[in-house]
């Protein structure tokens, strides 16, 4: 059958009922109200046609031979999550109706029903469909605007900074011998300030992505022990971490954590970066990974300056940085822990801090263990 024009489609109601009298009466009543009605004597026929037409509203009887109403709802929901479903239930028990609503039906109509009852429910159903459609459209538009805004603004903010930094980098590289001590120092100070700004834009971009839920992949899994090891290796090479001892230790046979590598790497990196920055010369940074039932536990501890108690409640707030004489010269965007918190929230975990001023800080992250990959035959594993 040919597809129908949108205006007709948006005015169409499907009725699936094995009872010919119900089909006929629904059709007559609803046609009088100006709807386009198609009726089907069984679920299979209705579902096949629904794939082509995608009507906004479906009325379906619960008790039918072959495919019952519950089965129909289940299949239809997979085909079209937006169609509004109203169930007709003959034995007007609340339980049946509740079960159907749990499976995604919007409302129910106990038999026998009056013309007005049918009309009212259908009107409500259409109202619901229109609102959902509008909300969906607005959400899409908002996301598109946000996505474009973030990319464009970050590109435009970065452009000038990159150009300035590139001039300075090349100047320093090609004219190093000709420049005086003070000039060299000013150039490297300028470079450091630009790097600060670039890092800020980068973090802000990450936060925007996190807010859209576009950064972390909840369906992926990664080995947090390996990630910790890689981050620690990297920090050992950095001049800024030269005065601290860095170690990583993962429990053997640690299960995979939920989340993708990029996202978890960012989490570990931000925590390690803080542990290094707020440390004392000769201090240590330890990253430990372990598991507890269904959780992967990541601990990043340092022997640094600690976090004053009144700062702790604000740690995960945007742009909040402690301003003590000890910390005022430590570079940072003030977004690192906000990013950590958002990543952890996104993955369904928790992050907590324990600290003693002047002695240590421990960040403890709990992440859900990854779901076992789909399609694995568990009997194989058990049978070993």
């Amino acid at each position, binding site marked *: 059958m040919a597809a129908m024009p949108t205006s007709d489609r948006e005015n169409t109601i499907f009725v699936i009922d094995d009872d010919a009298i119900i089909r006929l009466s629904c059709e007559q009543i609803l046609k009088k109200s100006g709807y386009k009605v198609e009726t089907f004597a069984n679920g299979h026929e209705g579902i096949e046609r629904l794939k082509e037409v995608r009507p906004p509203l479906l009325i379906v009887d619960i008790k039918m031979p072959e495919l019952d109403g519950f089965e129909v709802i289940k299949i239809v929901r997979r085909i079209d999550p937006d169609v509004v479903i109203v169930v007709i239930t003959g034995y007007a028990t609340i339980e049946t109706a509740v079960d159907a609503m749990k499976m995604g039906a919007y409302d129910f109509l106990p038999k026998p029903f009056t013309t007005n009852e049918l009309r009212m429910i259908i009107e409500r159903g259409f109202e619901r469909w229109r609102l959902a459609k509008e909300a969906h459209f607005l959400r899409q538009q908002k996301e598109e605007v946000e996505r474009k805004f973030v*990319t464009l603004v*970050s*590109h435009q903010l*970065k*452009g000038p900074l*990159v*150009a*300035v*930094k*590139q*001039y300075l*980098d*090349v100047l*320093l*590289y*090609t004219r190093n011998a000709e420049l005086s001590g003070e000039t060299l120092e000013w150039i490297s100070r300028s470079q450091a300030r630009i790097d600060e700004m670039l890092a800020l834009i*980068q973090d802000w971009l990450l936060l925007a992505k996190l807010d859209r839920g576009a950064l972390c992949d909840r369906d992926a899994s990664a080995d947090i022990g390996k990630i910790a090891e890689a981050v620690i290796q990297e920090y050992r090479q950095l001049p800024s971490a030269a005065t601290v001892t860095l170690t990583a230790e993962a429990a053997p046979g640690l299960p995979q954590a939920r989340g993708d590598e*990029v996202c978890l790497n960012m989490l570990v990196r931000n925590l390690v970066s803080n542990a290094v920055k707020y440390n004392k010369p000769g201090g240590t940074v330890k990253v430990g990974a372990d598991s507890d039932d269904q959780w992967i536990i990541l601990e990043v501890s340092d022997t640094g300056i600690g976090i004053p108690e009144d700062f702790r409640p604000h740690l995960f707030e945007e742009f909040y940085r402690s301003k003590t004489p000890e910390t005022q010269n430590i570079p940072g965007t003030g977004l690192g822990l906000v990013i950590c918190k958002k990543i952890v929230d996104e993955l369904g975990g928790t992050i907590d801090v324990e600290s003693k001023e002047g002695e240590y800080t421990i960040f403890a992250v709990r992440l859900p263990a990854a779901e076992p990959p789909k399609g694995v035959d568990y009997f194989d594993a058990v049978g070993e």
Partner: protein
Amino acid sequence: MKTMSESKAVLIIDDDSDFVRAIQTLLESSGYKVRSASNGREGIQLAKNIQPDLVLLDVMMSERTEGFFVLQEMRRIPALSRTPVIVVSSIYSEEPVFRVDPKAGWLPANLFLAKPVEPARLLAEAMRLTGASAAEADKPADGKKQP
């Protein structure tokens, strides 16, 4: 100091004239001949004419992903299909989607570098990509394994 790179030509395709000037100065100080184009179409035309030994390619020019199209187009032109290309961009801080796939018959891009580019790194990579034979072209200069 004049090196073997003396006769090598580098084409920079980038719409930021300041970035181009800085990089051009750097490359010229190491003896490269440098030409530049400020958009994709001009860049491909110039590449066809001068047959550069190396192309530095920006991603986001007047179009959001103009660099990717330039790269695709270059690889379709037989004379440019194996020209080493370094993609430079400030949009990505990590190696982005068009990672080097050594299994592909030709390389989409040989390398990705984030802007601002570290001068020593760029010169080392330029030396490697213009000096080495095609067979060796997928080993980065710093000896690190390519992801």
